[in-house]
């Protein structure tokens, strides 16, 4: 198991945001974590990355606990985090943003730049442009490219579709699929449940800090409760 989370409880002050979560991600899987606003999706990712620390339970990567580490140390263990809202460095160029992704690495980055520009040709065209002037879709691509520059084994994606036009969302989801084909494991947090479940192998549904469903993505996609709650369909019998 690449990533293992057990009985994870995380508090902001005295208010628990996560109330005992179990979650697993296997090598080369795409796992979707679905839920409404404030359900605990982002907190889960932030805890994996070391931005939050659990009051109970643990996070383990390759069987080794990482929940006591700081975020820069977790990054060094091979976890790339694309944060909610993209969080591009607004006054750095596209190239510098990508170099920041490789901050902990030494040696030539040429192959990595080529890989990212292969996935997102528009970033290659805008290498010298300042991050803050990119469109929302381009910023999302830059945020993903930046995380890939670290050569992560596990990529955490927090709402990559947020605020983007449907066509761009489709592009980004197809590239996420491609990234997995190239060998990177992905944990995907989304409100756009249909797209996420079509892409994912497995999915978890989180409500009020608890996992309420965990299953194959195709089964969740067909589940009436999921359809009612997250796919915008009327609940059965109404």
């Amino acid at each position, binding site marked *: 198991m690449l990533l293992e989370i057990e009985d994870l409880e995380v508090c902001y002050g005295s208010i628990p945001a996560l109330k005992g979560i179990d979650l697993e991600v296997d090598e080369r899987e795409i796992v979707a974590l679905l839920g409404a606003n404030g359900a605990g999706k982002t907190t889960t990712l932030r805890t994996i990355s070391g*931005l939050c620390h659990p009051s109970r339970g643990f996070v383990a990567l390759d069987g080794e606990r990482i929940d006591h580490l*700081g975020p*820069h140390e977790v990054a060094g263990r091979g976890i790339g985090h694309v944060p909610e809202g993209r969080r591009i460095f*607004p006054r750095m160029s596209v190239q510098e943003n990508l*170099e920041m*992704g490789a901050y*902990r690495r030494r040696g030539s980055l040429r192959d990595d730049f080529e890989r990212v520009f292969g996935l997102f040709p528009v970033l290659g065209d805008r290498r010298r442009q300042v991050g803050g002037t990119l469109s929302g879709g381009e910023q999302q691509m830059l945020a993903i490219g*930046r995380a890939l520059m670290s050569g992560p084994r596990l990529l955490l994606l927090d709402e990559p579709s947020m605020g983007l036009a449907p066509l761009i969302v489709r592009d980004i989801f197809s590239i996420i699929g491609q990234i997995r084909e190239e060998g990177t494991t992905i944990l995907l947090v989304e409100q756009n449940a249909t797209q996420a479940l079509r892409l994912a192998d497995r999915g978890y549904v989180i409500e009020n800090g608890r996992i309420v469903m965990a299953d194959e993505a195709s089964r969740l996609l067909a589940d009436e409760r999921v359809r009612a709650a997250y796919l915008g369909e009327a609940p059965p019998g109404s």
Partner: protein
Amino acid sequence: MCFTQNFWNFLVSGLADGFLYALVAIGYTLVYGVLQLINFAHSEVFMSGGFASLFILQAAIGSSQPHGIASVGFVALGVVGGGIGGALVAYLLERVAYRPLRRRNAPRLAFLISAIGASYFLYNLAGKEFGRNALEIPSPFVNGPVFTIFGATVQTYYIVIAIAAMAMLVLVDRVVAMTKLGKGIRAVAQDAETASLMGVNIDRVIAQTFVLGGLLGGAAGFLFGLNAGVVYTMGFTPALKAFTAAVLGGIGNIRGAMLGGLLLGIAENLPVGCVGTQWRDVVAFGILVVVLIFRPRGILGEQLGRAA
């Protein structure tokens, strides 16, 4: 009339002051960039650089009178020694006065009080240890007129300041723009949390930022002390003016600090020909008030607090 009469003289001395303000202002602006904090103990970094260079040059020069290449060597020694002294104190300030507060998520006011306390502690300690009177740094060169420009004589001292300061300003600009350290500093200034997700150790970058600002501030303390001597209270006024310069240029913006320093140095010196020396500080702090009221983000600042 009064304005034009000694224009070039006052411009020369204004530029020399301006270079020193610029060096010190960068320390304020770098730290503000990564911490959104005005390091009000930076005046003592400046003072420590002055004393460090004093002791080093006393040991190195003694009572001899260096000439030629030896002068260049001693100036470099003073700059480096002052810089290291300043950097050391800046690093200790970060570790002792600020980091423990950061760990506890202390409110902003606590940092300010801690800064003022550290500043009082340091300069009173210096006063107790090194005496209350100004000490003269053994001169690494023989001061005298080098050339005249439009009737204004330029002394060796001004040339030393200009060359040393310009070299350091260019160097720090390149370090911030091109090195990994510089990218780390800018990333933390723009979005510290995301920088940490990229693997940046924020604490380390903050310490490095204090050291970088301390190097420049300490070296400025040496250059200032060459002319004015070194005394435990020497940091107070120049550092406040350098803070003014940083605000004038746009706090958080490194080139803004350079520009603000030079402009402030010139602006406070030019009117001296008309109204007398006693107006210098009035003009300088008048500028601070006017900038804070009418353009708080400064000349090059984008928005307040987001301009590294």
